[in-house]
């Protein structure tokens, strides 16, 4: 059983007890405990069930590489599934629950999968569930879906605050172990900004923790003086609790900062760091040896067992067997022995070793067996005994040793994940059995030069002496490569050359494990990938490492193969009879450590998610019961329903008030782009299909823009303010796009033209006043004369309403007498209120975008985006008149001569009147001829003015069909018949708007 020692634990505050719950049980831990250490302290060895076979699992590591111990932690808005127990500190009343079992962790019904494991070999689901066809959808897949997944999703909305922080630095050091600290010291006072990110809450990594007791004082002094130096250096910033998770092109780095603990407000921040160079000091991760039954609770990585002892005063068990192939792992046996724990045997895969740690263990009376390993583990939900066997051979048990804990170490694997994110390549180190960064194929920055240097454990350099020896030298070389003039950094090496022997790599033991044993040897714990699975993959031709990974799901679990990937590659290579280096490795992808989706979204959610653009009239609209429609980034008033009025009635009322009296529209969102300069006219002639340079000052002209493919792109009224200045109005949604379009052509094609362009959309607001009484309303303001001869249709004037400057355009999108008043945005609301007041006796009514659309459809005006869809030409719209024949060149001109744009059959814009006048055609319904679709409805409304349904549509050769009736299909399966007419239903001669 696991338990807590009466004293010890560098990370815990024994004065402060913390209550927490695990699966409903009330447990106690200390301040500073992780969930994992607290569970172990409470003898909770069984903490999880695996993904596929629901096998009982315990805590296997003490860090982010943990494959087993995933928990659902928290409640309500703060519940989070799949959290590694090894990474989260306990808090008072924290609710921790294990996952993926039913009805309970101890008795899990789906552990029946374990009994059926024989049938569930790698890829079995590709080979079955094929017949009967419907069964996959209705039986097999729902079954699989229910069984898979790990934790439950949160049910409530997240109330956590996330934040993105931006930072620039010359050098980023990733990792604050011995290599990182030394690198930081070596980089100070060189005129460089340096940032060091350490994922842990303290610096130092393993070097201090793993030192011998006689060295402790010396090491501690170095550590403390180093921290002091870093603190004092103005050019070095240290971020603790900050884990670098992703490295992208051109030195863009993501880091996840998470502060936790009893007295800390949790902070979750995503750092976006732009760096020039990266010093990678991410250390190494211990690798297990794969042996039969290696997944039982009570089996743990050797260094992790040490971690729990040193940091939390927690014992994995009180009778521990160590199985290893290296001297370093003996530290675990020695330290446990020193606190009085029985270590009955150390099983060393090597033939012999006379390293100092081995000798020390021997001197403590620990029995050491060379050439031996574990051949089986007994126990149901925890370790009861291990069977010893020879490393050579099939694993015949020679001796059974009862124990309740097993520590395993197969050496260390450099943590090279981040090296690979942005193109760094790895090389296979056959002597040590791992991939390490290839110093000749580094990641490169935007200049194509190396921008990353790997030091220490992640580069395969493990001993303190070597790190202290190499790091200053490499940093000096690095600085001289960057041409940084400064003193060489020299640091006395306080470490003595370590005598631990390099271990010949060992991955899977016993070497000749029988088929039966191979089926009990787990490589990837979380996904239950066994040695036999990889062998099967190889046998079935999934020889490429990516194929094998995808076929077996090796390394695809939430730990991303941190402890399993190399062992898997080794088994694959053995199965194929190839060497590991020819197999290669799978690609490491960001993030190094999973990060919350909410963190990626950052603070830019809710109100800051695509902030809404509001017009100056928005407040009035809002008070006056407007319902909204999003239009590009804006919100516009869709309609203004009165109390107890249904939407249909509202629209009728708004339309008829424009037709009979006068209406007021907030059209501020209209795009307004000023084009100015001696060549402005010439420029616009190239942009629009019609002539703009001939427009007289004081006049307006409707213009159409096409793209080079000849399709309508945007439209709007152009006003010539003076000889050199045009104001081009665009659609509301198109303003930014059209502005960018103008700039692009001006800057990249016609840069010889003397023109300036500016987007004034938000500087001017615009209010349309439309209806037979519009002039009367405006004439109540004494200062203006709007008589038709003073301001004829398609003219504008600048004047004042009271003391508000306005530009009055006499233009119409409704077919009525209409004025659009441009006003400086800061006075728009004032003007709006003045107009409402003045219009009161004329029964003026505000109208929204939907009434606007009905009005324009009655008149037969097109809306870009409704009548056009990116495949419609001006000619299709019956607007040949707007395509200049005179102009030498304009955008789209060439395309109008292409074969398809002159095809015999093209869809053309027509008006559509249903035979049953009450029947409104559904949006987007299609016209049929002999059962074939020959066109579709682009706009369809019930016209309050005409008291009948009207529609516009694009119909194949529609103009030649005018007068004939067509069948339109509707979703109710009942056809509607309608007659094609000219696309204008109201005041065709234009007497109203022109009058």
């Amino acid at each position, binding site marked *: 059983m696991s338990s807590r020692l009466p004293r010890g634990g560098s990370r815990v505050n024994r004065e402060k007890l913390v209550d927490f719950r695990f699966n409903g049980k009330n447990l106690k831990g200390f301040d500073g405990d992780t969930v994992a250490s607290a569970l172990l302290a409470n003898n909770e060895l069984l903490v999880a069930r695996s993904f596929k076979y629901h096998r009982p699992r315990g805590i296997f590591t003490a860090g982010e590489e943990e494959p087993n111990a995933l928990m659902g932690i928290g409640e309500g808005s703060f519940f989070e599934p799949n959290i590694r127990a090894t990474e989260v500190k306990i808090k008072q009343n924290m609710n921790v629950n294990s996952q993926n079992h039913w009805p309970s962790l101890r008795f899990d019904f789906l552990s029946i999968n374990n009994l059926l494991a024989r049938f569930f070999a790698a890829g079995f689901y590709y080979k079955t569930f094929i017949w009967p066809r419907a069964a996959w959808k209705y039986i097999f897949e729902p079954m699989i879906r229910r069984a898979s997944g790990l934790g439950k999703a949160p049910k409530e909305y997240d109330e956590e605050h996330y934040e993105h922080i931006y930072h620039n630095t010359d050098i980023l050091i990733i990792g604050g172990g011995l290599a990182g600290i030394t690198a930081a010291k070596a980089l100070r006072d060189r005129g460089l900004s340096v940032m060091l990110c350490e994922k842990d809450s303290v610096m130092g990594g393993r070097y201090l923790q793993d030192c011998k007791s006689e060295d402790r004082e010396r090491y501690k002094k170095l550590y403390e003086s180093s921290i002091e130096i870093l603190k004092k250096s103005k050019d070095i910033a240290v971020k603790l609790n900050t884990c670098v998770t992703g490295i992208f092109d051109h030195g863009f780095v993501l880091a996840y900062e998470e502060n936790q603990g009893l007295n800390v407000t949790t902070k979750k921040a995503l750092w976006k760091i732009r760096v020039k160079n990266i010093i990678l000091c991410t250390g190494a991760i211990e690798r297990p040896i794969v042996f039969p039954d290696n997944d039982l609770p009570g089996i743990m990585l050797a260094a992790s067992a040490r971690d729990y002892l040193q940091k939390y005063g927690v014992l994995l068990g009180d009778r521990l067997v160590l199985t290893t192939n290296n001297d370093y792992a003996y530290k675990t046996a020695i330290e446990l022995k020193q606190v009085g724990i029985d270590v009955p045997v150390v099983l060393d895969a090597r033939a012999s070793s006379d390293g100092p740690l081995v000798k020390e263990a021997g001197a403590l009376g620990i029995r050491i067996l060379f050439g031996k390993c574990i051949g089986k583990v007994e126990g149901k939900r925890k370790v009861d005994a291990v069977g010893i066997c020879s490393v050579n051979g099939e694993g015949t048990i020679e001796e059974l040793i009862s124990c309740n804990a097993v520590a395993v170490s197969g050496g260390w694997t450099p943590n090279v994940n981040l090296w690979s994110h942005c193109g760094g390549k790895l090389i296979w180190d056959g002597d040590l059995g791992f991939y390490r960064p290839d110093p000749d194929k580094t990641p490169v920055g935007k200049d194509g030069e190396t921008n990353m240097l790997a030091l220490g454990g992640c580069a395969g350099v493990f001993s303190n002496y070597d790190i202290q020896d190499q790091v200053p030298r490499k940093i000096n070389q690095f600085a001289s490569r960057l041409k940084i003039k400064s003193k060489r950094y020299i640091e006395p090496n306080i470490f003595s050359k370590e005598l631990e022997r390099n271990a010949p790599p060992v991955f899977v033991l016993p070497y000749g494990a029988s088929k039966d044993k191979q089926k009990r040897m787990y490589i990837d714990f979380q996904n239950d990938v066994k040695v036999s699975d990889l062998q099967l993959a190889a046998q079935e031709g999934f020889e490429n490492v990516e194929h094998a990974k995808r076929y077996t799901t090796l390394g695809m679990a939430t730990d991303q193969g941190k402890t399993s990937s190399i062992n898997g590659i080794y088994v694959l290579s053995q199965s194929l009879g190839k060497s590991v280096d020819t197999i290669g490795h799978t690609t490491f992808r960001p993030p190094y450590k999973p990060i919350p989706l909410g963190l990626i979204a950052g603070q830019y959610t809710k109100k800051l998610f695509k902030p809404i653009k509001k017009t100056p009239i928005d407040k009035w609209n809002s008070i006056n019961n407007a319902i909204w429609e999003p239009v590009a980034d804006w919100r516009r008033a869709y309609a203004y329903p009165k109390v107890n009025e249904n939407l249909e009635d509202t629209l009728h009322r708004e339309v008829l008030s424009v037709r009979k009296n006068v209406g007021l529209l907030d059209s501020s969102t209209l795009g307004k782009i000023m084009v100015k300069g001696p060549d402005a006219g010439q420029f616009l002639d190239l942009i629009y299909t019609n002539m703009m340079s001939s427009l007289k000052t004081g006049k307006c002209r409707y213009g159409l823009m096409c793209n080079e493919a000849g399709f309508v792109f945007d439209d709007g009224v152009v006003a010539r303010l003076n000889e050199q200045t045009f104001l081009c109005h665009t659609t509301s949604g198109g303003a930014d796009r059209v502005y960018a379009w103008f700039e692009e052509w001006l800057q990249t094609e016609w840069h010889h033209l003397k023109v300036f362009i500016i987007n004034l959309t938000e500087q001017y607001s615009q209010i349309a006043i439309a209806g037979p009484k519009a002039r009367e309303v405006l004439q109540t303001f004494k200062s203006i004369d709007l008589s038709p001869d003073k301001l004829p249709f398609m003219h504008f004037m600048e004047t004042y309403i009271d003391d508000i400057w306005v530009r009055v355009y006499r233009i119409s999108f409704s077919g009525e007498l209409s004025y659009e008043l441009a006003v400086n945005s800061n006075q728009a609301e004032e003007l709006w209120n003045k107009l409402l007041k003045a219009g009161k006796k004329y029964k003026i009514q505000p109208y929204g975008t939907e009434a606007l659309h009905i009005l324009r459809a009655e008149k037969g005006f097109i809306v870009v985006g409704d009548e056009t869809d990116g495949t419609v030409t001006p000619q299709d719209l019956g607007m040949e008149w707007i395509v200049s024949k005179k102009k030498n060149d304009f955008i789209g001109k060439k395309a109008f001569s292409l074969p398809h744009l002159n095809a015999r059959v093209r869809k053309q814009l027509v008006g559509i009147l249903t035979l049953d006048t009450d029947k409104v055609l559904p949006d987007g319904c299609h016209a049929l001829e002999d059962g074939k679709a020959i066109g579709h*409805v682009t706009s369809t409304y019930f016209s309050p003015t005409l008291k009948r349904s009207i529609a516009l549509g694009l119909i194949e050769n529609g103009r030649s069909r005018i007068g004939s009736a067509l069948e339109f299909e509707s979703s109710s399966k009942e056809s509607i018949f309608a007659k094609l007419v000219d696309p204008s239903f109201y005041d065709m001669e234009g007497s109203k708007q022109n009058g």
Partner: protein
Amino acid sequence: MKKYSISSIVTEAFRDNLGWEKAWAKPKPKKEYEVIIVGGGGHGLATAYYLAKNYDVTDIAVIEKGWIGGGNTGRNTTIIRSNYLQESSIGIYEKSRFLYETLSQDLNYNIMFSPRGVLMLCQTEHELRAMKRTSHANRINGVDTKMVTPDEVKEIVPIINIDGPRFPVLGALWQPRGGTARHDAVAWGYARKCSDYGIDIIEQCEVVGVKKKREKIVGVETSKGQIKAKKVCFVAAGHSSVLSELAGFRLPIESVALQALVSEPIKPIIDCVVMANTVHGYLSQSDKGELVIGGGADGYNNYSQRGSFLHIEETVRALVETFPVISRLRQLRQWGGIVDMTGDRSPIISKTPVEGLFINCGWGTGGFKAIPGSGWATAELIYNEEPGNLAAPFSMDRFSEGRLIDESAAAAVAH
């Protein structure tokens, strides 16, 4: 070839699975073939398969630079749908979806086609109108889709936030027969069946040159030597331009990185596929429990199979707004695929300026769903040396004629 079935699994289970053969053979290339398919992704393998199945042509080599299915076939978000607007698109995507329905049985390989339904959200009035038009086009062309109300959306996807706040859900286009499939299995299933037909699948074999005689194809130069063929077809997605350059012509294609990501696995929370085009994000949940998320493509040419974080961020933000409960789930892995974008965002299945050389490319961000239909149509083109009805609209000359098949333009314009 050993048949896959429950009984074969049981039999094998009792003899340590020692009887399973290689899923596809690993032959050395012959000197000459009737047809060479360059590109061992889904589209290339499907093309070879339908050449064998529909036309009895089996003297084929499928040449793959890396490992089969290692390009976009193994990097996409596995969505299958055919709810397109234009008739020509509907034709090929619906054919494809239809073939997917029985693909597991045809191939004797469970590709896990799962018609869990595809929901395309409408979040602006304009999008709603455009989608209604699509639904009518679908129905006339025999594609089973319908418009559903916001309440029905909520019923289908309980975790969705239909009230916005920024973009409320105004409705959706629902294709119940759309869904997902296991992407790798599609490549493996086709490969296994191709191999069974005697087609050679040659991996780790890069085409480095194109052999022509008077503008007629005679073979290809590869990293494993020269291989002759009467007909060659390039099916290389993002790398099509590289191949066409070797053959002496250029394509209307640009290669960009498309990003996708998965979350950690959780118990089922969403059953169908949801696509939110206004905010740019797609979401579904795999059988393993991971949320599979796709978003926008980077705006610049790129062959590096890794992309910017920018689009990941935008997509995730949009999805967290739309599905607030996913906020506390974690991103597990992100990756990029090199997609081939044409001028009108529709694919190319076409003859080329070189006689006997054909091309299938330009599937851009949506190729997975098209694999069976694309293979079917390309096989027809290669065999007849003329496109059939499915492929004809997608010939390369449509660009010079102005005959674009523009699906996206319809949705991209707001008033």
